């Protein structure tokens, strides 16, 4: 049934449909509405057989899930920004131990300067931690991806992160269709048996591994992680069959066929981008490629999607200081040797809106063939120049005082 729902509430209900055993909660904006709604669902009896843990930090929330998952429980938490970084050590550990669980990251900028608004710097900082990373383009996809994430986690025995843009999606009311319990059950059977803490069959989990085997353990972990590239399309097909609704696989393409320029992006900006592309002159031949799965990186799907394009523009919602953007680096590596130009466009940092007007200005420059290798879109040059002049003046004055 289609209904008007806040993104966070819709995601909480989707998580509830996945029958979690343990939900661990610690508040941080803009993720709080998700765990708040889950606490209501648990208290109202809509989630029988679920333990809701109020913990004292994100480090603890991830740690409790490590314990719960290692004991065979289906486990879930949500976080954002500083919270994700605060739990970082445990995030890596959960992946290294091969523990299935699902976490929502309500994408938010990282301080300093402290900023509660949306960009994707938080999950990008965790991109190589061994979790599968999925990015939702809208709230319907956020709902769908959570169900698929639990299935992926179970089958891969790996943790899966579903990233959705903070506020832009988490706090937006829009029409979503929640799957029914029967539909979810059809996609997501009870967790398969795996070695867990059990007195009847004692296992040692988390042993120390030295130089003689660490490389092999990590190699095998990487192999398992990459298996998501095979599995996700199958799960998406299952989900589409069960719900009768199109479900994202590794990537989403829009007008990429025959496109001269393909704009690559992750998350909520994809909707605006598609609208903008529709409004452009047909002769410009611009397509949009959305990466639903970012880790493991779907290099083959990216190559296939940009087949016809000569120019790739990567819209980055995060900044890798000293090295532009992480997504562009991955795309460039996937396309190495193909002769295509890959430009990085950094925009929408710390909640600055990426409006259709902003994107039109970007595509205007593309049309004029005036796009540098690296562009800070919508940067207020006056502010930057004034600050740089002030700094230079201070340095000069200090030099005068010294001499």
């Amino acid at each position: 049934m289609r209904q008007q729902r806040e993104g966070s509430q819709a995601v909480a209900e989707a998580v509830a449909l996945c029958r979690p055993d343990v939900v661990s909660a610690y508040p941080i904006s803009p993720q709080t509405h998700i765990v708040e709604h889950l606490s209501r669902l648990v208290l109202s009896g809509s989630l029988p057989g679920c333990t809701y843990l109020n913990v004292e930090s994100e480090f603890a929330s991830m740690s409790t899930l490590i314990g719960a998952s290692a004991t065979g429980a289906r486990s879930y938490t949500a976080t954002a920004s500083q919270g994700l970084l605060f739990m970082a050590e445990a995030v890596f550990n959960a992946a290294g131990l091969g523990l299935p669980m699902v976490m929502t990251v309500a994408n938010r900028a990282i301080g300093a300067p402290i900023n509660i608004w949306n960009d994707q710097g938080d999950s990008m900082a965790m991109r190589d931690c061994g979790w599968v990373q999925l990015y939702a383009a809208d709230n319907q996809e956020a709902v769908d991806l959570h169900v698929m994430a639990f299935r992926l986690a179970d089958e891969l025995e790996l943790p899966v992160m579903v990233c959705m843009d903070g506020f832009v999606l988490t706090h937006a009311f829009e029409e979503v269709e929640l799957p029914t319990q029967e539909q979810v059950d059809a996609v997501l059977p009870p967790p398969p048996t795996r070695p867990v803490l059990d007195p009847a069959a004692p296992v040692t989990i988390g042993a120390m591994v030295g130089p003689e085997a660490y490389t092999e353990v990590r190699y095998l972990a990487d192999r398992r992680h990459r298996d998501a590239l095979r599995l996700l399309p199958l799960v998406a097909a299952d989900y589409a069959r069960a719900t009768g609704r199109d479900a994202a696989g590794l990537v989403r393409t829009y007008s990429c066929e025959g496109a001269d320029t393909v704009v690559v992006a992750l998350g909520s900006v994809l909707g605006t981008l598609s609208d903008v592309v529709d409004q452009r002159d047909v002769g410009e031949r611009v397509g949009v490629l959305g990466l639903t799965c970012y880790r493991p990186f779907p290099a083959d799907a990216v190559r296939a999607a940009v087949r016809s394009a000569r120019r790739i523009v990567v819209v980055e919602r995060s900044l890798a200081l000293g090295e532009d953007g992480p997504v562009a680096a991955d795309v460039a590596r996937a396309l190495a040797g193909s002769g295509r130009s890959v430009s990085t466009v950094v925009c929408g940092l710390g909640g600055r809106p990426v409006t259709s007007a902003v994107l039109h200005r970007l595509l205007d420059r593309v049309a004029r063939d005036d796009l540098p290798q690296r562009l800070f879109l919508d940067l207020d040059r006056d502010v930057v120049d004034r600050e740089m002049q002030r700094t230079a003046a201070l340095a000069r004055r200090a030099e005068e005082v010294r001499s």
Partner: protein
Amino acid sequence: MTADTTSGTAPEPVRFLQVGSLAAGNRLVDLSLRAVQADPDRPSGLTKGHRACRGCGEALAARVVLDAASRASDGRLVTVNATGCLEVFTSPYPESAWKVPWLHSLFGNAPAVASGVAAALHVTGRADVRVLAQGGDGGTLDIGFGTLSGMFERNDDVLYVCYDNQAYMNTGVQRSGATPPAARTATTPVVHGHGGKDMRPAKDAPRIAMAHGIPYVATATVADLHDLEAKVTRAMGLHGARYLHVLVPCPLGWGSASDEAVRLARLATQTGLFPLLEAVDGDVVATTPIRHREPVEAYLRPQRRFAHLFAPERDEQVLAAIQADADRTIARYRLDRDDDAPDDDFDLPDDDLADTGGGLP
């Protein structure tokens, strides 16, 4: 990464690692008075052949704690371990000294991991399986302190055991929040006869635990394994968050002989520096009076980490301060009371202890 341990709980022949004490291994003690550790047919959760140093107090305590907890739970026990000596010397892949389900995650999160394990057991209908979490003083009182407090505050159904050897021994004897005043460590060195840790007291972990009002808090040492076993058994008879703080001398870090761990642990209690107590719901209900009181010097002298207090010349000021600290502790818990006199304030009978409840709803 998982590795199967040797299966089942088949009897493990005991190799006696210590002699000359009143506890495990002393063939002179009457059979009926010996600790269970002296039973060659005992099922042992932590098997021999691990890589602890000779004379390690932690290895001895962990074996006793584990077996007492296994017995108390009828073998329905799972364990969580913080990073540290105990983790490292028992789990070099592909070997494992653990015959119980054992999970190691990180240095600072064992209490939270144990909370998650307990929650999972309760919610999946396996509440009869009990959870034991273990860590050293660094993992418990420093880097894991927040998660420990959180676990206490939620009253999660976990017995947490801190093996306190008073420094970061696994990384080479650096100062921790449990390092006592004046002790030499690698990061509180002694230079030209001066140094060691400053005179600030170590964190008083048992009292901090008590302040959370959790169902059970107790202290013990490896000098009295019967007492240690009894406290583990009592803790396992309760539900909710329980905390056991065990003093485990470290020959390497303390600079003592490898056959002196038990004697030093006993001296720690006899001097008053380490009080033996039990607390229920935040109140002390039992303490062990000191029968043969010793000056702190008797405890400090055999340890090279305190050698700078005696040579090249005696540091009377520091020795007096440490003695005053011991005196305060003795007064606080009235450890100098006559052992035979009735003590109305303390010493609830075991029946009352067992009734104190706690536990998850």
